[in-house]
Structures are given as C-alpha cells and as structure tokens.
C-alpha cells in the first residue's frame, strides 16, 4: 500500500500567530497513525486541517497542500472531502436532538430513507461504539442528557455512520473508562482493515497499543514521525525522548 494522504508544507496561523509550522507528512493507507504531543501544541488544529474543518475558523489562514489520493483537497468539494474524511471532535457535542436523530442525521443525507435500514445502521454503529446496550430503550431521549462518556461514544458512532475512507479521531477516549476504551481500541484495530485512522491521543500507552505509526508534535512542528515501536523504543530526537520519559506510572 502507499500514502493515502500527503501533507505538503502545511502551515496554519490564527490571527497571524503561527500554530502549525510547515508540516510535511505522509499518512499510510489502512493503518493507524497516532499524533501525540503536549496540550496546546496544535494537534487538534493539525487534524482539523486534514478535512478542511479549520477553514471554518474565521481567523485562520492556511498555507500548503494536502493531497488525498494525489488530489488536492482544496480542489474538491468541502462536503466531498468530509464524506471521505470523517472526524470525531475533541469535545463530544451531540446535536440537541434525540439519540436516534443524532445517529440518522448523516445517513438520511446520504440517501437512506428506509426506516428498517436506518434502524439497522443505528443499531450497528451504536454497538460498535459500545453504547447500544445502555441506550437501546432510550433512543428517543435527548442526546444531551447522556453521561460524558456516553456522549463521546455517541459521537464516535455518529462519525461511523458516514462510512468514510479516513477517520480522524481527536482524543476519542478521553472521557471513557478502561472497559470502553478497550472496546473502542479493539474496534479501531478492526476498522483499520478497511479505514485509514488518524488518532490524537495524550495517552502514550494507547498510542503504543494501537498505532502503526506515531508522530510527535511540539509547538506546531512534527518533531519525529515513524513506526510506533521505533519512535517509542529508539527516539531519534532528544525532545521526543524527554517527552516519552516524562511518562510515568
């Protein structure tokens, strides 16, 4: 396989403050790539650039190119880009609708009308995200009433309903307990047979467990990027080593 996504000289400014600084990177197809790095270093900004979500921030300016299968995403329809590159945001924000409506929101758009089919999708994706058992009797409840972790799982399930080629996950397990985290990780590893996955995580052991490739980001730059084992076991950059060794417990 090869690189499904090529990032060339990507820079992002907010109000002329450089947040992402000239990143060059290739993302391998059907692999899991983890982005690690301290809070505020630009991880979210970076992955938001990958499906052009960053353009919605009004004070941003973007330079460089991102090629999806060799095609610049800037030359594509925004919607098309996002259909192909799905995303789960860092802060889980369900729509102020019922759980069911949250789940059918995208499928209805993609042309699925049949009630039975919709129900199947809702069920399937909620099961993958490990939420189905908890909410199967409350599908009509407002999604905003769910617990923090439940909301996060709902958002993951919602992103899966789009059936994207690439899935961007911004700290998808931050509000989850071990069991659910394990569920999600298992799911991601299964999904990587079909999808390309990019995951932002502050949990190094998570990156170790599931990622094929890992990138370490610091102050808007990719300090080091490579196979996960190599990066964790023999980091080439002193800063990477320091960051990993800061780890404990």
């Amino acid at each position, binding site marked *: 396989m090869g690189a499904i996504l090529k990032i060339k000289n990507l820079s992002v400014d907010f109000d002329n403050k450089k947040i992402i600084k000239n990143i060059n990177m290739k993302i391998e197809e059907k692999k899991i790539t983890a982005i690690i790095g301290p809070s505020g270093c630009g991880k979210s900004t970076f992955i938001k650039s990958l499906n052009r*979500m960053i353009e919605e921030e009004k004070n941003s300016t973007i330079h460089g190119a991102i090629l999806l299968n060799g095609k610049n995403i800037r030359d594509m329809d925004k919607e098309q880009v996002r259909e192909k590159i799905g995303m789960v945001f860092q802060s889980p924000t369900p*729509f102020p609708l019922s759980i069911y409506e949250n789940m059918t929101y995208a499928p209805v758009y993609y042309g699925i009308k049949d009630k039975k089919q919709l129900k199947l999708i809702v069920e399937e994706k909620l099961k993958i995200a490990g939420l189905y058992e908890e909410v199967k009797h409350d599908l009509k409840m407002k999604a905003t009433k769910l617990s923090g972790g439940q909301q996060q799982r709902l958002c993951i399930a919602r*992103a899966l309903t789009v059936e994207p080629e690439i899935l961007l996950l911004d700290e998808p397990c931050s509000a989850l307990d071990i069991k659910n985290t394990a569920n999600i990780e298992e799911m991601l590893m299964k999904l990587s047979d079909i999808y390309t996955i990019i995951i932002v995580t502050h949990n190094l052991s998570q990156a170790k467990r599931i990622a094929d490739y890992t990138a370490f980001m610091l102050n808007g730059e990719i300090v080091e990027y490579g196979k996960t084992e190599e990066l964790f076991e023999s980091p080439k950059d002193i800063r990477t080593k320091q960051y990993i060794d800061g780890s404990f417990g």
Partner: protein
Amino acid sequence: MHRKFEKIFAIIIKLLTFFSIIMLSFIIIFIIKESIPVFKKVSLLDFLFKMEWNPLGEPQSISIFPMILASIYVSLLAIIIALPIGVGSAIFLSSVLSEKIRKILKPAIDILAGIPSVIYGLIGLLVLVKFFEVNFDFSSGESVLAGGILLSIMILPYIISTCDESMIRISKQYKIMSEGLGVSKWHMIRYLILPASKKSIFAGSILALGRAMGETMAVMMVIGNSPVLPKLFGKAQTISALIALEMGGAEVDSLHYHALFAAGFVLMMILFFINMIFHYIIKNIDL
C-alpha cells in the same frame, strides 16, 4: 463590599420589572374598567355571540361576533402567509447569505417594521385591492384576503428578526459538528437548525400575531369594514378597525364608547388565549 452592589442591582431589576407589570396592569385595568358599564346592559354572551352591531340605533344592539371572527380570520391568514416566508427568509439570511450581504439586507427588512400603516394601507388600496378588482373581477377588491396579504407583509420583519438571530446562534454552535459529517448546508438547515429553532419561530409568531391583531389603519383601508360574517373573498370588519373607526365619533362615557372598550377587551382576551394555546403546544411538542 461587592454584595451591596449586587443588592442594588437586584433591586433595580425588580423595580424595572415592577414598572412594566404596573404599566401592563394599569392598561388592562383601564380597559376593563371602561368596559364594565356595557355588561350592565348587555350580557357577555350576547355581546360575544350575537350578530348585530348598532350602538346608535333604536333599539340598541351591541354584539361583535362577526368582528371577532374577522379579527381571528385575518390575523391567522396573515400568519399563515407570513410564517413560511418569514422563516424561509430567516434561514436564508442566517445560514446561506454571506455576512456582507446579510448586513445590508437585514436593516432593509427591518425598515418594513417602520413604515407607517397609512402608507401600507394606501399601497394596499391602490395595488392589492385594485389587483383583485381588475384581475379577479371582484365588484370591489376589499376583502379578508387583501387584509391578510397586506398584514402578512407588515408582520414579516417581526418573524424574520426573531428567528434569524437565534438561527445564527444555533448554526454557530453546531455547524462544525455538522460539517464534520460531510453533510450539506441544506441538510443541516432542514434537520438541525429548523428543529432547534422551534421556540424562536413560535416566539416570533406570537409577537407577529399580536401585531396583526392590533393593527388598525392599514387593515381598515383594505378590508371594507362591513360588519358581516367574514368570507375569504368578502368584506369584513376587524375589532381594531371597529374601534378606530368609531372611537372618534363616540361620545365619551356613552354606551357606545364603553362598548368599543369592551370590544378592545375581547380582543385582548382572544390574544391571551391564543398565546396560551401556543405556549401549551410548544411545551408539548418540545419533549
């Protein structure tokens, strides 16, 4: 100490509210007080449900059933016309147009609220009524329909203003999530913004309904002011038109005068009940 400031602030807010409640009560009490003498002569039921209005005739008859129907008919018609147009325009303004064009179009729509009703009435008379006469071969174009259409234009800015502002807020909050799902703007509007703006749409409609029921001058000029049972293509007279038309000539403290206030009181009560029903509906829709 800061808590002292807070106490003062609380008192000011309470005072201001007290003020508006005082004004509200004062106006309601005034209208009720001026209405009461009527009900010493005519029973409330007769006043409400009989057909004839002839306060100066012998024998006097003061009943406003046709006007009640006409007021409700014309206002609801106006709402029915204005609501889709208003909500549609609010959606377009808030979610489709660029900020730049929006900033010009919005104030332009807002001025619709500031055009004096005489001018609306005149336009209605010269254009709308004429249009019906010429194109539909009405003997005279004054009709409930003309009133409803004219009113719908007049209340448009109230609906648009109330919806648009909250739609912008909702869109700001959820747009990113929705776009992250690769869904089009139109889908977001239909399946997210519209359902989430229900409350604002209702609030706008209620405000507009009040405006429609209270509006006088413009309606008066296009509806014919005939105290008969309203039909869509026929003439009618609304309560507010009745009041405006006859208040000038009614002798102060005469039965006629009090009857006009009583009509105003009835209008108030109708509005109150319709609002209550609206509030009830919205409460039960939004579970």
